[in-house]
């Protein structure tokens, strides 16, 4: 009963956790991943109809603020927008502490700490894709836990942002930095539209004027910031 035989022939992989967590624990490089899941940026770890939290596949690897993401969950294609990201200790009873070293030095001399950190991002659910079309309604079922999160490609971003309804969804969402998020998503929408950005901004601008007609200060601040992009900054 006293221990197994010592062989000296085992591989390093044989020491991994029995239920290997592909997100942060496995020392196997990500580029060995293949198949459709390879493009994922995260995995859902908390989910509700209106919002979800995903763990980023890589440390500091959350999609940009305001970026559009797609969640494949049980046949549904949910669409949402990233409105918050944070990096913190993955162990409830341990907190990061200051080492007084650069990140490069820490990676060489304290490599374990990066395994104990994780990046999570929050996604505001905007609706779901039905075939090629965007449905601006909450999905019938929330995303399942452990569903993968993918970045929306250019065509998907254009479909999602075609109907100015998404602006209303953002304006009505509680608990998000609304105006900042609005501008960030609009910039992402613009980046995926070559040429016709002026027309597009015009449509979105008039929608905003309708929705925010009772709040002139806020509206003018938003429009002012959007006009600076029209001068070529974003296109």
């Amino acid at each position, binding site marked *: *009963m*006293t*221990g197994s035989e*010592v*062989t*000296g022939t085992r591989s390093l992989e044989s*020491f991994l956790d029995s239920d290997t967590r592909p997100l942060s*624990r496995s020392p196997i490089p990500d580029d060995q991943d293949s198949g459709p899941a390879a493009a994922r940026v995260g995995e859902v770890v908390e989910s509700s109809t209106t919002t979800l939290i995903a763990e980023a596949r890589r440390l500091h690897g959350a999609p940009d603020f305001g970026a559009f993401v797609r969640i494949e969950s049980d046949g549904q294609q949910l669409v949402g927008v990233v409105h918050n990201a944070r990096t913190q200790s993955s162990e409830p009873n*341990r907190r990061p502490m200051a080492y007084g070293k650069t990140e490069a030095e820490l990676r060489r001399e304290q490599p*374990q700490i990066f395994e104990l950190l994780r990046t999570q991002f929050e996604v505001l659910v905007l609706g779901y894709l039905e075939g090629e079309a965007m449905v601006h309604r909450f999905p019938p079922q929330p995303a399942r836990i452990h569903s993968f999160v993918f970045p929306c490609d250019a065509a998907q971003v254009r479909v999602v942002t075609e109907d100015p309804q998404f602006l209303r969804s953002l304006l009505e969402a509680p608990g998000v930095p609304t105006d900042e998020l609005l501008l960030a998503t609009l910039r992402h929408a613009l980046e995926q539209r070559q040429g016709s950005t002026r027309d597009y901004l015009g449509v979105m601008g008039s929608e905003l004027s309708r929705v925010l007609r009772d709040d002139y200060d806020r509206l003018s601040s938003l429009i002012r910031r959007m006009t600076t992009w029209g001068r070529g900054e974003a296109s």
Partner: protein
Amino acid sequence: MLDLSAVRHQINSMVADHAEGGTAAFDARVRVAVTELQRWSSDWPALQQQLDRSRSSWMVPRIVSGPLAQGCTAPDRPERLSVAATDGSQIFPDRHEISPCYLLNIGYVLLHYGTDERPLLSSRPSLYWRDDDLYPQWGGRRTAINRDMVGFRRSLLELTELAELAAASQAAGHETVALTDGTLVFWGLEGRPPDFRQASLTALVSSFDLLASRRIPIAGYISRPGSPEVVNALRVGICPVEGGADCDRCPWLGQVPPCASVESVSDAVLFRQILQPGERSALFESGSRVLEDYGVHQIFFFYIHAGDEIGRVEVPRYVAEDEELLQLVHATIIDQAAKGGGYPVSLAEAHERAVVRGPEREGFYRHLEEVFVRNDVGARISRKSLRKRTVGV
């Protein structure tokens, strides 16, 4: 429940006693020990001769190198180096629970320094439930396994798994040092049935064989060591009996013998007076009886000033006799302790991987219960355990 107010008085008395313990009498004994160490410092072969002649009742080491009262400074750690560490923890068999099974959880850590390579941090639980696990047969008798045996099996698994991990790391092209928490001297083997000893020693010796054949150094790090082996040697040195100490025929029987002048001083307290941060002591070979069965892998030790504390480092013979490996172990432990705030960071992380905390243990038994019920396997927990869970007023 513990009535803290009721124990407060006793705590106060205990603290008062401790405060007295650190007083003049003890300090004087420490000073004597330091003086004795200095006396033999470069003349250590003479002390060794005296040890050889003597028949003391204490465990004394063999002195391997000198000078005794001087530290060796730490060499630099190679820029690229990997440190492998394991630690273990367990859920002891509990006959009041739904099943008397037990669990060993081994934490693995492999940290690569000087590169950007990702470290390995993992743990693997193993469940033991078969009759042979729970009622092992040793010395011709079947007995229910106890905490002692489970703890022993865990220590052994930590060591064999560490050997495998370090070998795998080296095979993957990393220069590796293997660290384990605690002693390499399995003194728990003393007094065990011969077949149990034999099976354990086979696993132990083959781990050392493997590491020695790949020239991977292994070291056991003991934090806050309490052993007085070196001080015991000094006691023999103090003994004025002609022809060497013979404790069975001590002329001071019933009185205070001369060697009592260093009594209750531990090696760590002694070397705290000698070593500067980063330094290690001279090398000694452990005199533990159980090592007679270790074959060629006798265990050697030295003390080290790890920054805050004096730690004890144990290495097998192939490391002790290979100056390069010995230096590597010294440099690695100093660097590991600096990174871990006084305690080797790889061992601290291995512990974090391995530890099974109270709520996890509870969760384990509740899950076990669910699975038993779901599969309609008759299972009962003892009335005592049940009563603990639902306490009425």
